[in-house]
């Protein structure tokens, strides 16, 4: 019961801040609302007893991605104070479309029989250690593990190549 109330509070806070993310006028506010929404998601991870991902959500999303977004907002500062509308002209079309998608997905969810399932047994606390072994187990996720590092390397090299000042360019 208490859990349900807490869930509703957190879900509402998260969704409201998500709405502010997409509607806020100042981009910096949008970024800060994004932090709150991401934090709400982290709390929901904790609700789902995925402690590891709750912490990683804070670490990666709030600690790194949000900071990156804020940096980007600052770097492209000059146009941020534009007082013009932040939404495109046909935003209501998007709103209707998204609303239809939302209702449709909910309806689809309603037709699925398993949706009212209660939670299964609690996860084993040693599961994280299991994950650590599985990640480097050649019969399990060794390939995704290495691919992840290559993806990160590619992202790093690509982003640096794009973002770094060209030599001799004036900045």
């Amino acid at each position, binding site marked *: 019961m208490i859990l349900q109330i807490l869930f509703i509070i957190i879900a509402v806070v998260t969704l409201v801040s998500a709405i502010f993310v997409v509607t806020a006028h100042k981009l910096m506010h949008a970024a800060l609302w994004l932090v709150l929404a991401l934090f709400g998601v982290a709390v929901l991870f904790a609700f789902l007893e995925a402690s590891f991902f709750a*912490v990683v959500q*804070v670490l990666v999303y709030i600690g790194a991605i949000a900071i990156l977004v804020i940096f980007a907002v600052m770097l492209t500062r000059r146009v941020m104070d534009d007082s013009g509308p932040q939404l495109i002209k046909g935003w209501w079309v998007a709103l209707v479309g998204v609303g239809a998608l939302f209702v449709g997905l909910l309806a689809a969810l309603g037709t699925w029989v398993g949706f009212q399932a209660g939670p299964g047994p609690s996860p084993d606390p040693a599961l994280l250690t299991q994950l650590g072994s599985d990640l480097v187990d050649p019969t399990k996720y060794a390939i995704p593990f290495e691919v992840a590092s290559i993806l990160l390397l590619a992202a790093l090299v690509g982003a640096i190549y794009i973002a770094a000042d060209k030599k001799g360019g004036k900045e």
Partner: protein
Amino acid sequence: MPNFWSDPFGFLIQWFNNLLLGWGLPGGTVQFIAYVVGAFILVAGSLFFCLLLIWAERKIGGRVQDRLGPNRVGPFGLVQAVADMLKIFTKEFVTPDGVDKVVYNLAPIMSVAAVILLWAVIPFTITFYGNDLNVGVLYLVAVGGLADLSIVMAGWSSNNKFALLGAFRAVAQLISYEVPLVISLLLPVMLSGSMKLNEIVRAQDVPFIVTAPIAAAIFFISSIAENGRAPFDLMEAESEIVAGFNVEYSGLKFGFFFVGDFLHAFTIAMLFSVLFLGGWRGPGADQIPILGFVYMMIKTSIMYFLGLLVRFSLPRFRIDQMMNINWKMLTPIALGAVMATAFVDKATANVLATTTPVLGVILRTLILLVTNGMVLWVASDLMGSVLTRKERRVVALEARPVARPEPPAAPIEPTEGEVS
């Protein structure tokens, strides 16, 4: 029921729980109340403990720099911090026009909270800790990341370009030094096979500072940088920028950034002693937990004192030096230490398993020590060439756009007729 004299904390916790249960409250409610009370004691305790820290820091700083430090209010100036607190509580809040009110007021609170939150998982004794989270080490790192956010918020909401610039410099420093910090924390986790801080303490039959000295050193250095202390105090380099991200703050809001700062210094020392010095471990600490508390505090005080010595004796780095140290030394060395330790330890594990346990531990310790030494040796060889390759351009002799020096006068040929 723990004995009061050997384990006062455990005794009090048990006593409190039994008291509530005796009133007929259901178990869940009792746990909830115990949590609230425990958290309240830790949070409020850490905040008030900060007063003592401020006094200690000023006193030690004074002695290091051949001054007296606070010595007027109370014995040894002990009450000085309380007087300062009272003063700062009655200061006016000057809120500049054009600040973003909510963000502006939230930032100092967050910067304190980001430090206090670390206390939630620190094991003080075998029985006395906030919570032994099963992802404790990652939690420490994640909470540390919140400090970056508070600084960005403070800098941006102040509506002041110096605050913003200072904030960005500070955040660039913080996020840079978080990289080696995160990597160096891998080693305690690896050697102990757990992320619970209490388990890490338990696993330190040999303190990790012996088996992973590089990680310990890197953790210490990057923690100081995370704290923004000298020699990494670029974020409040008052001779270079206008004091950094907190120029527009006043009164207690300004004070809170420093509460966070002082508390962080001590928290780092605690974390270091937990992660690398064996925390509450010591002779007899398993039976008499209060002894563990004493050991823990002794180790923490030593580390705290060391941190203060570093702070008060070393000059500030230049910002490019600081970034070079981080990216070209600490991060590669930390990665190298992780790789070398993992490789060597695994490679020798089978051999060591055939020896007796005691001999195995001794040999393993020696092997890891040698490995660390090798990493350091190779690193210093490589880094030396990388670091010294590019000297800062000497601009003293070049023509500069402003304050151009006078063209050098033609050398005066000594003529025969003149006698000087």
